[in-house]
């Protein structure tokens, strides 16, 4: 239902009321914005001097870009590993052999319910005692993200394969394909199209959660932008937060739009007979989902037919 159905095409009285409401809300929004503005102003946050560093290439070259590279590197490696993990465990959960199915199920459920930061801490402290000293921040962040998001993706893979109508595999068996041929040639190609939007939205979560590396001092965008940079340019803390906030929001929104676009495309795609899989964590996927520091998934907007 589009929001416009909640209220009628306004008549004369409603128009007056809406006009009043608009006026009041403009004033309220303006008051909030002015409150923020004057709060910043009182503490001298609009002074040119503390914004100056962001106009210089040096700041970007030495602080922000290396941090961004750190973030993207961790996200890229973790994304590849998580996809592998997800594919292996998702398919293992569909196995005909109970011991494989149950083991994979337990692994996935356990990793999904561990708070991600605790997992990262644990790997961070465990790694040196297993393989000796060194810098394990990158490994801890990447492995934590891999196990966690991999488990969520495993659920996505399972849901994707299950979303392919039963007739497809029945027809494939009927023409004499083996189990692995059915999976490889019939189910997976269709499932991937249906899974794509959910996978991309999970990658947004993964990218966002690289910021947890800040807590164990991994050199990511949040660390260079919010800890090292304000230390170098005294007083630039809030401008720094705003600048890196904008970078994060832009990156994630771009990925989210990709997910929406993919979903729209796969909804009208004729290459698959499966409906797009709901974003992980929504009611369709089941109990106990909740994605990293994301607030759990949300069912895609369903038009009312």
């Amino acid at each position, binding site marked *: *239902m589009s*929001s416009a*159905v*909640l*209220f*009628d095409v*306004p008549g004369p009285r409603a128009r007056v009321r*809406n006009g009043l*409401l*608009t006026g009041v*809300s*403009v004033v309220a*929004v303006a008051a909030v914005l002015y409150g923020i503005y004057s709060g*910043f102003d009182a*503490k001298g*946050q609009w002074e040119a001097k503390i914004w100056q560093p962001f106009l210089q290439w040096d700041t970007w070259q030495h602080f922000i870009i290396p941090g961004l590279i750190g973030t993207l590197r961790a996200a890229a490696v973790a994304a590849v590993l998580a996809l592998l993990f997800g594919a292996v465990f998702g398919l293992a959960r569909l196995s005909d052999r109970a011991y494989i199915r149950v083991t994979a199920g337990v692994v996935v459920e*356990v990793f999904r*319910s*561990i*708070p991600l*930061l*605790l997992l990262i*801490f*644990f790997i961070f402290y*465990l790694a040196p005692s297993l393989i000796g000293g060194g810098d394990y921040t990158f490994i801890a962040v990447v492995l934590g993200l891999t196990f966690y998001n991999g488990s969520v993706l495993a659920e996505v893979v399972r849901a994707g394969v299950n979303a392919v109508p039963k007739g497809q595999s029945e027809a494939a068996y009927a023409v004499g394909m083996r189990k692995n041929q059915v999976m490889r040639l019939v189910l997976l190609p269709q499932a991937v199209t249906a899974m794509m939007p959910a996978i991309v939205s999970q990658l*947004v979560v993964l990218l*966002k959660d690289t*910021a*947890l590396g*800040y*807590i164990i001092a991994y050199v990511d965008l*949040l660390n260079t932008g*919010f800890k090292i940079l304000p230390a170098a340019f005294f007083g630039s*803390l*809030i401008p720094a*937060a705003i600048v890196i*906030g904008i970078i*994060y*929001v832009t990156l*994630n*929104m771009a990925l*989210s739009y990709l997910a929406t676009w993919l979903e729209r495309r796969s909804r009208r795609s004729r290459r698959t007979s499966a409906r797009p899989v709901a974003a992980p*964590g*929504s*009611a369709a996927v089941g*109990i*106990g989902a*909740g*994605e990293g*520091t*994301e*607030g*759990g*998934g*949300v*069912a895609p*907007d*369903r*038009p*009312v037919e």
Partner: protein
Amino acid sequence: MEDLIRYAPDLALGFLENIKLSIVGAITSLILGTVLVAMRVSPTPVLRAAGTIYVNVVRNTPLTLVLAFSALGLSDQLGLVFSSVPSVNSFWIVAMGLSAYTAAFVCEALRSGINTVPLGQAEAARAIGLTFMQSLRMIILPQAFRAVIAPLGSVMIAMIKNTTVAVAGGYAFDSANKMKEAFDQVGASIPIFLGIVVAFMCVTLPIGYFTGWLAKRLAVVR
């Protein structure tokens, strides 16, 4: 195992802090999320835009940044102080950041709930002369809430797990920090880690099952 027993009282106290944060966060984020969703479907374009911008910005910002900014920026630099006691202040700062963050997800969950309410309901509400607020309050939201109990449960579970990020907001008494302190002394200890994980599962799994059960029980029959 001895490590776990030795540190158990300390860890339990830390876990209690997570629970306290979760309770405050659940209440405030549900209220704030409902207000946000009312804004997003309101007949006033200004409120709609404000709600949309808030949700999109907050949802795409890492929680770590939200909390670190609340603590270092809002509290230390701009002087937003809830209490003169530092630990109490940082508790409320974290609770505030967590609620502000979770509210965006609550809003999105509710909005997809509103999408499940059939058109006829809103039309009927208008036909009997209910105003926007009345139809939202008495017709739309009650059905929307019932449709998204399970997703809201997932949002709450995610929020409970997110309380461990409190350390980014300068609150150093929760279980993640207690675990870190224990690890600093005895090295990575699998029993301690598993102990905390089991504690979290003891809270999150029942919530998952309960909301799943409730969702089935309260489902609107159509």
